[in-house]
């Protein structure tokens, strides 16, 4: 059945929704903190990038299943 062809992109899409929400919150708080204290901007930026990499990793796990199972799609 072609359920795999439907399930894989849907899985990645749902993972992207979750990470989009998480990243929005993280970057939003970082922007707010930068507005409150402009002299701490480099540290906040570094912490924001590192936090974004962690949140992004969860979507990458979903993308991995596409790469691994993608060959099975006829």
């Amino acid at each position, binding site marked *: 059945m072609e359920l795999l062809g439907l399930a894989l992109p849907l899985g990645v899409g749902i993972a992207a929704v979750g990470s989009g929400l998480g990243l929005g919150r993280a970057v939003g708080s970082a922007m707010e903190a930068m507005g409150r204290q402009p002299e701490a901007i480099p540290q906040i930026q570094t912490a924001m*990038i*590192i936090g974004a*990499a*962690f949140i*992004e*990793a969860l979507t*990458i*796990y979903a*993308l*991995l299943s596409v*790469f691994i199972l*993608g*060959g099975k799609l006829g």
Partner: protein
Amino acid sequence: MSMKYFTLLTLLLAALAFTGIAVAETEPGSQDDHAEHDPYHLQNFVTLFFGEQLKGHEGFLEPIFSAIVAVVMMTILTSVASRRTDNPSRLQVAVEMLMGGLDTMVHGIIGETGRRYTPYLGTLFIFIWLNNLSGLVPFFHASTSSLNTTVALAICTFFYVQAIALKENGIGGYLFHMAGSPKSGVEWGIFPLMFVLHVAGEFIKPMSLSLRLFGNVMGEDKLIAVFVVLGAGMLAFTKMPIGIPIHVPIVFLALLTSTIQALVFTLLSMVYIALMLPHDEHHGEAHAHETVV
């Protein structure tokens, strides 16, 4: 002066662009019988010259490029090491800035006693960074874009962290830490459960480290390959062997994610080491025992 650099940079970018397109066109026999050969695959100089001999031994590809990166790293770094002079060259200043930055990062996360772990963590960062970037060099292949290298690095880090924990806490202290450091009667009661949880948590750390690095680097390389193939086929109606280099913005994105992923791997290793060290001077703060995935 700036005109010379500008033309050099443009030539470099054009060379990158067109080489990428050229090597994507020369894919090995895509009319094979095994259907799992993906059409989005950039060549490197090993598969070009030794493609047939590599057929049954795909695992040989990664160590070759890891070794090349290691040799390049050692050449550059040892040529400026321990050179005490009042007038350092630009390369020496750059390398020392990198070392200083790494040392500051380790000091910030692990503390003063953590400086002795800087050699391993610094080497880890530079190795992963150069390996990620070598996927962008024409005719090279990023060895971290395969699970072989990333799992190897994660296993090395896992054994290093456990060895540090054993050395710093002793065998009894290590088992005590694994049991969640029980202090009250309740905690001694659930000691077996916490032990299993902590041991499972220890094993999931290298797994997530390796999968994160592998996913990001392979994702970027495959993205570049997809854009190269797309760009190569854009002007196909003119019947000329010319394509449009639309993969150049993705190459810049790959520069960013290569650095960030190397940083994240190293930072997480530092955090795992910091979690293992005896931290009895911060009794007031929250005992950070959650597993970072």
